[in-house]
């Protein structure tokens, strides 16, 4: 069995699955249950200054469902911990003492002044916790008070607060980033400039789940009024993965440890975040959908995958996919893919045909010798992958790369196997001269 243990900033955990700072890590009873189920670590739900915040007594969560009611996306308007600070600190100390092999990170959010941070950091260090995570991401409620994403959206604040924290604690400092910005590299660079030991991302995305068309209100509401929440779950994974990749490949932040968060539901999602440069992954929605036992399935799947691929430990594939993420202008414009339909497994639904015909390149024929038969017209196919995306039978439509010597029937060009990108393309008015 593959070694799933992690050493992230010197914080050890038996597996890379940490529960993200969120409702599942709000209390001792929850966290004990999580550790008993096998979670490698937790990021304790964000602590703030006393008096504690107050939550609404109406719906805190809302959901985007598939038709058979699987959870696709999830949002919440819960604030940071609404319990007295000392209660949380006492519980953190007790749980860490009883589970010394698990990672115990404490999420923090206090007003942007040095004394507030200094004071809370000292009290957290006293619990025996392994590290702190600075919550610069919460997009609802707390941000209205100048905290959470209100900090995470201003790189100068990120750098300033990170510097204070590094000054006032010896614990590793992880900066949790908000996705509610235009370019995640700037807050990440600020965190690094402030001395952050790592970043974690993404926090949740501003969202309104829906509208109640009978009552003509946004949904959900408390006593008729609602507020935007933070969006998470499987739907946000592609957004999170992009932001992780941007930080992993940015020259200014490359090598900065990343704890990946965002819709991780299966072992495969976790493996993808690790391949994209993450040292640990954080999970919340999957636990809130399935309960804590899901971690056993995540570990099992990840371990089976690693055994099959021959990865002895997580480091063996951490970041392995990062070099393949490039700016568009680096893509090889001489490469040509064509769709291929496996007639043996095609079920003749014709979806590939109609979407190609209506919305793309008219490159899939619907009949052959007067009979229903779906096949690719290579003279029109641009290799766009739409047919692969909508085909209901996995593996029935695949993309085939034309080999050197083959002719692209669409352009009449013979493939020569050479590499050339946009930067040197004749159509590019800004092109660089060819060597």
């Amino acid at each position, binding site marked *: 069995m593959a070694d799933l243990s992690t050493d992230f900033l010197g914080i050890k955990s038996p597996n890379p699955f940490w529960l993200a700072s969120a409702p599942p890590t709000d209390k001792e009873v929850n966290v004990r249950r999580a550790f008993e189920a096998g979670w490698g670590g937790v990021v304790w739900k964000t602590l703030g200054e006393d008096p504690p915040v107050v939550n609404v007594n109406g719906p805190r969560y809302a959901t985007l469902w*598939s*038709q*058979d009611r699987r959870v696709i996306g999830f949002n919440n308007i819960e604030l940071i911990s609404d319990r007295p600070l000392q209660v949380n600190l006492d519980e953190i100390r007790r749980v860490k003492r009883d589970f010394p092999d698990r990672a115990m990170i404490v999420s923090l959010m206090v007003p942007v002044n040095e004394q507030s941070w200094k004071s809370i950091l000292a009290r957290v260090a006293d619990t025996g916790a392994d590290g702190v995570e600075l919550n610069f991401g919460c997009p609802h409620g707390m941000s209205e008070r100048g905290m959470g994403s209100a900090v995470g959206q201003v790189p100068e604040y990120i750098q300033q607060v990170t510097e204070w924290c590094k000054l006032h604690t010896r614990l590793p400092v992880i900066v949790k980033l908000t996705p509610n910005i235009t370019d995640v590299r700037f807050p990440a660079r600020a965190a690094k400039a402030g001395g952050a030991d790592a970043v974690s991302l993404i926090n949740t995305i501003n969202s309104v789940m829906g509208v109640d068309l009978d009552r003509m209100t946004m949904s959900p509401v408390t006593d008729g009024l609602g507020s935007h929440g933070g969006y998470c779950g499987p739907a946000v994974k592609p957004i999170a993965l992009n932001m992780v990749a941007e930080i992993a490949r940015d020259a200014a932040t490359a090598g900065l440890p990343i704890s990946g968060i965002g819709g991780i539901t299966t072992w495969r999602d976790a493996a993808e975040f690790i391949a994209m440069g993450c040292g640990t992954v954080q999970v919340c929605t999957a636990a809130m959908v399935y309960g804590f036992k899901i971690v056993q399935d995540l570990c099992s799947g990840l371990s089976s995958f690693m055994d099959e691929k021959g990865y002895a430990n997580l480091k063996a594939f951490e970041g392995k996919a990062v070099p393949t993420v490039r700016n568009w202008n680096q893509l090889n414009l001489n490469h040509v893919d064509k769709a291929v339909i496996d007639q043996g*497994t095609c*079920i*003749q*639904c*014709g*979806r590939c*045909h*109609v979407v190609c015909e209506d919305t793309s390149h008219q490159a899939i024929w*619907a009949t052959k010798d007067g009979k*229903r038969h779906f096949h690719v017209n290579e003279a029109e196919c641009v290799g766009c992958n739409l047919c692969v995306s909508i085909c*209901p*039978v996995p593996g029935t439509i695949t993309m085939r790369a034309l080999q050197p010597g083959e002719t692209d029937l669409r352009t009449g060009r013979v493939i020569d196997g050479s590499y050339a990108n946009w930067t040197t393309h004749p159509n590019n008015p800004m092109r660089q001269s060819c060597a």
Partner: protein
Amino acid sequence: MFARFSREAPVDLADLKSGRLGPDDYARNFGDAHPPLNRSQALIEAERCYYCFDAPCQTACPTGIDIPSFIQRVAQDNVRGAAEAILTANPLGGMCARVCPTEVLCEQACVRNSHESKPVEIGLLQRYAVEGHLANPGKPLFQRGMPTGKRVAVVGAGPAGLAAAHGLAWRGHDVVLFDAAAKLGGLNEYGLATYKVAGGFAQKEIDWLLSIGGITLRLNCRLGRDITLDGLLAEYDAVFLGLGLQGVNALGIAEPQLPGLRDAVDFIAELRQSAPEIVPVGRRVVVIGGGMTAVDAAVQSKLLGAEAVTMVYRRGMDGLSASTHEQHWAQTHGVTIRCWARPLAVEADGGALRGMRFAATRLEGGRLVDTGEQFFLEADLVLRAIGQTYETEPAGSALDLQSGRIKTDADGQTSRARVWAGGDCRAGGRDLTVEAVEHGKRAAIAIDRALGLGSARHFDQEATHG
């Protein structure tokens, strides 16, 4: 498999009686055979539809219902829109959802069969949509066109006649709908097993169909007795004949008048029109025939409490016109299907049926011949279900026939001017309810065109798009 002639139990013979079961048994046995989908089930099943291009299911549907669209609308919780898609193509879409042999029509064509051998449950989804809509119809789906002043007689209020009447009334014509029976519906009302149409659905759907307006009813009015085709042609601009098959094939042997020897269609009709508690059934029942009528009669005999029910068919299993699904339905209800035998003689004793003697058959050079063996099946009730015939007298001899039924063109136009025909009385069909509906629908379009008013309007499209 069958009881050989035996003298051991003569006292049991001609044991024909009603009330063999308790009230709960009847309620269970004659309730809905296939319960409808609830909303959760419908939404999940609807999600399975791939929304195929040029969908094979739609091609397979005789009425051409846009199945992907109606299922997409079910998935989007738009029951009214789903019903509109169905009823625009098939105004008896609710009944067809219950009685269509979907396993050889739309569901056989479903691409889900390729890998899963489990098609989308199109019939059940269609039922969900139509019944859901009829339970809470709101604003009418179809608005009758401006009155044209044309009058059309529709003779026969079965599926073909009802569809024709609806299509004509929709287009603004005044329709008078005649039927010899006391109730509308034809085979929908009289000819289907009770468990297929539980809950009085046939009449509910007809009430909805008539709600379009412009249809005047003349029940208990028989062509050839109370009205004539010539008389109708003198009075109306066009006539549609949906006469069905009124004759029943004889066994071709001596058939004495016995209470235990009757036509399966009458038995089925009696069950539809009375409480099952009062319908007599034998302890041992023999049904002769291999079609849907035979299955409906055999299964219902079993459900009435018969101990042994045997369907006897003169050819092999692959010749049965009942679908594989229907055969399994019969077998899982304890009906024995015995092939390769033809009736030889009805045996009776003192006015009471004792059973039936059969000759075993086989195919020889493509011809069915006797093998020389014979056997006897004890029976208190023998039901004839070897097919029905078109009776020519009511409509008169002026109509050309083909294979004993009315010859028409693709639109249903007969050899006689201003006379159209559809449903089972029309030659060349498969005797399916859904096909009869298509006949009526197409004839209405053709009649409208022939009346010279059809070109400017587009009634075959959904109202919301028209």
